């Protein structure tokens, strides 16, 4: 068919831009994208800055090193559950049962370790498998029977809480004091290892970004201006070094027992972020998830097995949810009959949406879970420090979720009006 292509008399695709424009131009392009409703990470970063200023003034303990480390460990389960939900939201679906599915999985882990003396590795694998099976069942029902995922997962939300009760007993809980599992949230990397990790992350990102940029320029592909690439590397570098610096300070209240270093949950989130960014952005599977979310009929006509994509996404979601509740068990030191119930799921949905993932499908990134999860965790943490009654916490978090969904809906309308 190439002969047909080259027979064309003139190369008329003349106005296609591949060259980088200047830094100023790309800043302008960014501003017009934001105005057009494509705000990306802006609302969550802005929200985070505002929250830090407000809570920083309201309570002098908020910005302390100890509280910053607490914030990170509290954010861990929320971020991981939000990451679980991003692919589901990309499809334009919802999984209301993700939290309790993770709860069942964490229960399986707890019961296996505590009551059956199984090794932690096996218990964790069993938990992940439990999540995967739940996800496959949900996916099969949604894809094959065509019931809206909202209804299916609402049914699972109720049913799975019953399963947890059965496993653990009314009002009971299983203590998690196994070293590795408890260590995820409670143990820290050595200061040296922390610095090495931070530098390695920055170096790897910089090398990959620069190589990619050079390859695009060489092949004449569309690419960003070099200055923007450098700016991104510098920004990531500053944030990473800043976080590492804070976490590597002594944060103990008791000077004789210094506590310092990066809690293990942080590198875990970094690894998951890299994994999901890769899976969604650079693999065929990820591309097909976006396609199904954007236009299922177009995806079907392109030969994509829409059902298989749906099932795999729900499976991935519940598996990640299992991981999230394992981390939660590490943070709280126990698995209880209410694990993953309550507001865990709303926190996670709120996190993903605040981060910039659309509830309407087709738009979102793994990193949205991280920025949005930090916003939600900061609200919970800050209000906790202010000793507010817990009703305020509910009202504020619900309000934030509604605000994020409104921003999503309005920006979507703007996007379709401006065609971005």
């Amino acid at each position, binding site marked *: 068919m190439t002969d047909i292509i080259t027979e064309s008399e003139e190369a008329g695709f003349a106005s296609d831009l591949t060259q980088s424009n200047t830094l100023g131009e790309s800043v302008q392009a960014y501003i017009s994208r934001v105005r057009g409703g494509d705000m990306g990470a802006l609302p969550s970063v802005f929200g985070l800055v505002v929250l830090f200023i407000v809570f920083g003034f309201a309570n002098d303990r908020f910005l302390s090193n100890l509280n910053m480390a607490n914030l990170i460990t509290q954010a861990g389960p929320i971020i991981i559950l939000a990451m679980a939900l991003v692919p589901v939201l990309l499809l334009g679906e919802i999984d209301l049962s993700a939290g309790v599915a993770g709860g069942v999985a964490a229960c399986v882990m707890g019961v296996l370790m505590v009551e059956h003396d199984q090794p932690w590795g096996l218990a964790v694998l069993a938990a992940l498998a439990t999540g995967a099976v739940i996800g496959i069942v949900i996916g099969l029902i949604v894809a094959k029977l065509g019931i809206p995922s909202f209804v299916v997962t609402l049914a699972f939300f109720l049913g799975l809480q019953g399963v947890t009760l059965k496993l653990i007993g009314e009002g009971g809980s299983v203590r998690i004091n196994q070293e590795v599992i408890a260590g995820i949230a409670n143990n820290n990397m050595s200061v040296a290892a922390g610095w090495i990790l931070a530098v390695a992350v920055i170096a790897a990102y910089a090398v990959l970004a620069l190589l990619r940029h050079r390859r695009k320029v060489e092949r004449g592909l569309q690419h960003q201006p070099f200055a923007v690439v450098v700016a991104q590397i510098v920004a990531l570098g500053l944030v990473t070094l800043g976080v590492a610096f804070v976490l590597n300070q002594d944060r103990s209240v008791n000077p004789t027992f210094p506590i310092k270093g990066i809690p293990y949950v942080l590198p875990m989130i970094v690894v998951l972020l890299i994994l999901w960014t890769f899976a969604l952005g650079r693999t065929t599977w990820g*591309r097909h998830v976006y396609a199904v979310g954007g236009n299922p009929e*177009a995806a079907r*006509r392109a030969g994509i097995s829409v059902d298989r994509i749906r099932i795999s996404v729900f499976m991935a979601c519940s598996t990640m949810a299992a991981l999230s509740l394992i981390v939660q068990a590490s943070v709280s030191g126990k698995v209880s009959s209410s694990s993953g119930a309550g507001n865990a799921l709303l926190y996670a949905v709120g996190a993903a949406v605040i981060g910039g993932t659309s509830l309407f499908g087709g738009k979102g990134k793994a990193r949205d879970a991280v920025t949005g999860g930090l916003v939600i965790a900061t609200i919970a943490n800050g209000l906790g420090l202010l000793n507010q009654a817990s009703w305020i916490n509910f009202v504020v978090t619900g309000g934030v979720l509604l605000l994020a969904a409104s921003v999503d809906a309005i920006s979507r309308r703007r996007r379709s009006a401006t065609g971005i």
Partner: protein
Amino acid sequence: MLSSHPPSRTMHPPERLTMSESTPLLALRGINKSFGVAHVLHDVDLAIYPGQVTALVGDNGAGKSTLVKCLAGIYPIDTGEYIFDGKPVSVHGPKDAGALGIEVVYQDLALCENLDIVENMFLGREKKSGIVLDETTTESKAREALTSLSVRTVKSVRQSVASLSGGQRQTVAIAKSVLWNSRVVLLDEPTAALGVAQTRQVLDLVRRLADSGVGVLLISHNLTDVFEVADRITALYLGRVAADVATKDVTSRQVVELITTGHSSDLDGAAAPSTTA
């Protein structure tokens, strides 16, 4: 109902074709398709020849798009034979049609608005190096295909489809069908939303495709375009084939009659099978 048209008795093969080229590349025999109680296609016969443009004409609702979707494997056929390259085949989905070398431009386009032009053009057939998507090759190939269609107003191949006009989307859909080494290209009203210059480009492309040996099926309501590029015309009337004739044997008036009434009194009997039998 209809007199069948075995390939060897094709009535008016254009003179420039050899005998082997006059066997259909793709043929349908006695196709029926219903949606519930609505019987949309009745014993439809269709032949698409290599190197020829076959025009499919018919009024709104005649069943043209349905026929294309049956060919593409989007809708299953109720009864009838699907013959490709002289052999009966069964096409159960878009993948099967793609594997046979059939490319389709749908009337409703079906593009993913949240993906960019390159991503849409390679959807379902992404190029990979290892397990990683190969963005480099795909972007250059997409640019090449678009260049051939003289797309002038698209700013960049990395623009999302949501930001394209109707005509630009149509060009993207057509460019997508040119990307692959297809043997049959089905175009459902490809010029409906296009301006004068773009229509010109597409008609030229349709002709170039056919001249390179591809079998092209073109659906259009514009008879001027049909008479300009088509070698054969198949007229569909209420889901039945009203006529299957060589373009040079009919006049525009006769085709209008076929489209609106299902028969044309002064068309010679061999070329216009009766629809009332």
